[in-house]
């Protein structure tokens, strides 16, 4: 069966991972995807990317469960054979990870979905685990940045993953990480896009924006695409994915 990854080479020595980018990284922020691939490959992992398919979480949020189930079934059909072959699935999008790990077992609830959920990892946690096992080495170089403010998205907190990206970034020498810790940014997936919630979404996030201005952050890091849009619009700072910082630290920009 060809899932559109015909290039994959099966090297039994290498650890095999599927990188699932999610819609945001695929269409709007491909740089994140490139950084993920680059980081994983530098660590000697064999990365493949299957044909793209939306995870359907935004449909769940809009109340289109039927459509979400269809999306989920399609994605599971793509991922399941790969899991069977021994691939781990890695995603850098908190919402996609939440959908696959927490929502699929509830809305789809079959053996396939459970197996896929079990073998899906959020990127930062995955890298942290490999690092703790000593399977990858994290010899980062200094980067021009001295400090970065980190905002933990709700969907990561929901999976108990809110400290993993901080742990990873803390491995970069000379980089100070400030945990903003001011709750939700207000975008809340697709809710803040809706006309009637635009204002309330800005109010909900106001504590966060205020703090960002207070600490005068050079750059804000967050894993979530929606948070990125909201913070960029409301606080007018550059927002990047932690993995982009890691990738830079590897490439030794000095």
């Amino acid at each position: 069966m060809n899932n559109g990854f015909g290039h994959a080479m099966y090297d039994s020595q290498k650890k095999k991972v599927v990188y699932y980018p999610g819609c945001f990284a695929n269409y709007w922020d491909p740089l994140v995807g490139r950084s993920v691939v680059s980081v994983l490959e530098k660590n000697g992992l064999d990365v493949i990317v299957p044909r793209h398919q939306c995870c359907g979480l935004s449909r769940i949020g809009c109340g289109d469960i039927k459509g979400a189930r269809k999306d989920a079934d399609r994605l599971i059909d793509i991922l399941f054979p790969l899991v069977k072959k021994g691939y781990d699935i890695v995603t850098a999008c908190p919402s996609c990870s939440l959908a696959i790990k927490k929502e699929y077992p509830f809305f789809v609830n079959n053996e396939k979905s459970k197996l896929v959920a079990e073998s899906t990892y959020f990127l930062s946690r995955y890298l942290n685990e490999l690092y703790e096992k000593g399977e990858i080495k994290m010899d980062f170089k200094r980067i021009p940045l001295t400090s970065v403010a980190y905002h933990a998205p709700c969907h990561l907190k929901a999976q108990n993953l809110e400290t993993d990206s901080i742990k990873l970034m803390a491995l970069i020498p000379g980089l100070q990480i400030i945990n903003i810790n001011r709750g939700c940014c207000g975008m809340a997936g697709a809710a803040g896009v809706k006309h009637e919630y635009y204002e309330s979404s800005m109010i909900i996030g106001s504590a966060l924006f205020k703090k960002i201005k207070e600490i005068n952050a050079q750059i804000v890091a967050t894993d979530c695409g929606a948070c990125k849009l909201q913070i960029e619009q409301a606080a007018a700072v550059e927002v990047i994915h932690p993995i982009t910082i890691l990738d830079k630290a590897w490439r030794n920009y000095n």
Partner: protein
Amino acid sequence: MDEYTKKSPPVVLIEPNSRQKSRHLAKIMLKGEVKFNQREIKRRIKKIRRYSQENMNVLSHKFSRNVSQYKDAHIVFANDATEAVDYINHVVQDIKVVAVGKSSTVDELLPVLEKGCYRLIDSYSSQFILPDGIQKRINYPWQFQSTFNRSAWDTFEYSRSTDQKDLSGHGLKDIVALLGVNAASADDGSLFLLQHSNNIGTMLRQARKLVFVVGLEKIVENSSDALFQTKCAGAFGMESILLDLKVGDTDKEKRVIDPLSEVPEVAASSQELHIVLLDNGRTNIAVGDYKELLQCIACGACSKQCPGYRYLKEFSRYPKDYLWSFLIGYNPSIELCSNCVMCEVECPVDINLSKLIAKARAEYATGITHFWRTRLISNVGRFALIGSLIPSLFNWFSRRKMFRLLVERVAGIDRRRKVPAFNRETFEQWFRSRHV
């Protein structure tokens, strides 16, 4: 059957054990040493709740059978809010003041109750004065950490139990107290209430007539389970109480005086005790997709990290209540939830609230804006696919004011929202081209 020689079922009040309760509450929030095995507590409360959800009918029969053996307790079953209020009106008769505690079960009756010709008094909001130290921290409820791991559990103690002797008290006032219970025991008909300051204690002591509203799902097997459940509601709901106060801060008129102290005493010999068993849709919910909601212990932990909490306060006490009131029919919409899933993280009995709200939305949502919105926002994948085919054209359009206005009108996407620009090359295309 020694229990039943008494005239009324025991009423147990659980509260923080301190003379200066609100100050004590603040202390626990800021520091505290005792640690508890939260997992063990959660396991037990989940077991209790699952049992009482699955055996709701059996337990409620047993409960009403046992209560009816007490000579002075009146129990009535109400199918819906109207029936319940009819009975309450019958109890109230000529009394002018009805004092209401903070309870989501009683809230279900409020729309009908407000039509009655008596004064409804919110006995809850009037009782708190917040210490300064805590006032500031309320703005950041997610920073509370878990008070649970500190000493909240220890704080809630089995405090007072009124039996027949207490019911014939002095200093009764012409008040009907309308109270929701946190738990009721099917075994001996005892009722458990939780208070954080002193409003419920005051009502229990002073009201000439007591009406307890028992939601069917609140009945558990025995009184030790009921005690445990009430303690859990107190301990897990600690932070949400503070949140509640913060939100309640805005309507100042409620907080000025304690209106109960204004009511004069009357010469009455004993209190009356009435119990209303409230169904109000519960038996329907118990057989449907949303039966999980019946496991709720009404602690309000789901509000702790809810981003939209201050907005859903308008319709409900806490996020679970938001869906509940929608299902029962007195809350018009559930559109406010953003499905951030923080409520599920906080819930001590692991109710899949966010998923259930999504489900309800799918079932009940209608309308043309909803139709287009589902096609635009929810269909990010396909929408983005089209956008990325002709990125420059799409990006040009998304910068035009007229176009944004059109999208706002048709699909309800706000025109002020900055739409991210599409890239010439998607990530997938880049990845494939790399390996050619």
